[in-house]
């Protein structure tokens, strides 16, 4: 009896949707072993990672607070990944969006007006788009890899933010801390669940996911994106302009990341600080893949990764797990997912040599 691997004629849809669960299961099992080796009680640690954070209403709301930015960014990135456009600089576009939107909040400091928040969000979207336009221009005009340029721009954006918060935007009454003033009331996003921090960004994330789903499944542009990604030659033959798709994907993902930047500074943070996020722009890459690059799949994927953030913090408090554990598990989850993707395209077949026929009776299928 031997194992043989053969390619499937078509990808297995069942496996496509099963593998995320398999990957989560394998990650949890590995976590169990790792915790044991590190001298933590595995069950206790897993419980404080995955269960106790969401036993309260406040915990559930926090899950939404962290999932909203991840989902919004990941939806944009996933559309690009479908077209083979690898924007990995969402963190930088988020930062520029936060600077653009936050700039309006600081400029209108102390003012009232219902126009301020929409203006901030618009500025955030445009800021992220403008920043993503740089890799788009370099890619379409000079064939420079958007992977490297978008990532380099992230480092530049972080340094630019630091110039602002250490310099002109520093809070005059902030005792010299590198942070801006707290935004005034008109520049703070509304809360949707009283008594918690859950803000309107959660609803925006859901709306973005649904809109992206419609775009990808019901529009010609969505079709073009998929063809450009999967069959560039066919796309050229059909007359789909690749450059247009590159621009579209980068502007879309950059704009969404910029929007998230604005919402983060005007929501949970309430001011501009040097470290805006715990790496949402990068973690969103994991979320996009875990959600199978499908706008609706990204919603539960975002919730799960958000849970790993909250769970990581919680396990830090409850059992003293080091902070790096969260990143480790997020990376591991993506590994297992990519590995189990093998099952989507290949099948493992049990073959028995004809001579050694089994003597046991085989149950009828």
């Amino acid at each position, binding site marked *: 009896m031997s194992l043989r691997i053969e390619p499937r004629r078509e990808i297995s849809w069942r496996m496509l949707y099963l593998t995320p669960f398999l990957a989560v299961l394998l990650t949890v099992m590995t976590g169990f072993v790792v915790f044991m080796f590190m001298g933590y009680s595995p069950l206790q640690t897993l419980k404080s990672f995955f269960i106790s954070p969401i036993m309260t209403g406040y915990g559930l709301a926090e899950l939404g607070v962290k999932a909203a930015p991840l989902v919004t960014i990941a939806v944009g990135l996933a559309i690009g990944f479908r077209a083979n456009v690898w924007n990995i600089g969402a963190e930088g576009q988020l930062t520029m969006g936060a600077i653009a939107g936050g700039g309006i909040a600081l400029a209108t400091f102390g003012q009232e007006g219902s126009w301020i928040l929409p203006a901030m969000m618009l500025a955030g979207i445009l800021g992220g788009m403008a920043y993503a336009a740089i890799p788009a221009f*370099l890619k379409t005009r000079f064939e420079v890899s958007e992977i490297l340029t978008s990532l380099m721009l992230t480092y530049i954006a972080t340094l630019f933010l630091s110039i602002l918060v250490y310099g002109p935007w520093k809070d005059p009454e902030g005792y010299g801390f590198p942070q801006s003033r707290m935004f005034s009331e008109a520049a703070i996003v509304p809360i949707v669940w009283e008594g918690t921090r859950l803000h309107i960004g959660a609803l925006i994330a859901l709306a973005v996911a649904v809109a992206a789903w419609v775009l990808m499944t019901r529009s010609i542009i969505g079709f073009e994106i998929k063809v450009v990604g999967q069959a560039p030659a066919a796309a050229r033959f059909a007359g789909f302009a690749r450059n247009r798709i590159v621009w579209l994907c980068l502007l879309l993902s950059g704009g969404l990341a910029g929007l998230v930047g604005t919402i983060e500074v005007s929501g949970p943070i309430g001011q501009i600080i040097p470290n805006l996020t715990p790496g949402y722009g990068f973690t969103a890459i994991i979320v996009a893949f875990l959600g199978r690059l499908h706008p609706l799949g990204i919603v539960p994927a975002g919730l799960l990764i958000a849970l790993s953030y909250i769970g990581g913090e919680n396990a830090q408090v409850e059992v003293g797990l080091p902070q*790096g554990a969260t990143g480790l598990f997020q990376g591991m989850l*993506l590994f297992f997912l*990519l590995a189990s*993707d093998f099952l989507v395209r*290949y099948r493992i077949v049990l073959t028995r040599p004809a001579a050694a026929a089994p003597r046991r009776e085989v149950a009828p299928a």
Partner: protein
Amino acid sequence: MSLDIVVPVILTVISAATPLLLAGIGELVAERAGVLNLGIEGMMLVGAVAAFAVAHVTGNYMLAILVAAMAGALLALIFGVLTLTLVSNQVATGLALTLFGIGLSALAGAGFVGSPIAPLPKLEIPGLSELPFIGPILFHQDVLVYLSVALTLGVIWFLKRTRAGMILRACGDSDVSAHSIGYDVIRIRYLAVLFGGVTSGLAGAYLSLAYTPMWVENMTAGRGWIALGLVVFSSWRPLRLLGGAYLFGGVTILQLYVQGMGGIGVPAQVLSMLPYIATIVVLTIISAGPWRGRLDAPACLGKPFRPAT
């Protein structure tokens, strides 16, 4: 400028260039074999923390360097299993490797933050090290600096002059042809990826043992990505990579010196942006210039290959 200024400047340029050269030369070999590994940053970080931990606990620097190389190779092996055996997407897997490496190194290094070690000792060559000017530059460096140059020369010789090097390039330029002649493309790519892991681990070791002898989370600060840019800049030629690494070392040091001299009226952060801006500018010039057609990217770079069974 007098010699007493020039020598320290050249020394710091060398120390800034060495990690870029080490990481770049391994990636160059992997890419010549047709594999795009975006996980350099992760492998460097794990190499850095492994080297630091061993040096801190045992004080044995040779062992530290060896363990860093093995740690890098181990991460590269994960990448190889995923992309070569399980045919996963190389871009996605490389990103996963970087995220994994950042997390793993932060977790493993949590206990070492803030504890100092003595820097990696320089090798003294009696007589030669005391020579004026060339003595301190050529004959008073640590083992990793010599290794980085030796590896580069070795790779030049290997790719150009050896049969194995030609086979490796064949795998990168036409995997199907190499396979049909009877070469084991997957095995050769595994070896190339592992070599990349080893040199990335060494690059990390250089950062945490010699460049700044301490462990800080995320201490690579994008050097792995700059090394990736340098491989494109070099148009996959080792000698140009050497030049590129030293050019970028120069840019990094220029920025530090200007900051040290009290700046030139711009915030320090603007100067810190220089290496990243330079990477973008150089990549653009390389891709846009008249030599565009001679870029010579390996034809099968990043494409999955699985022999039919």
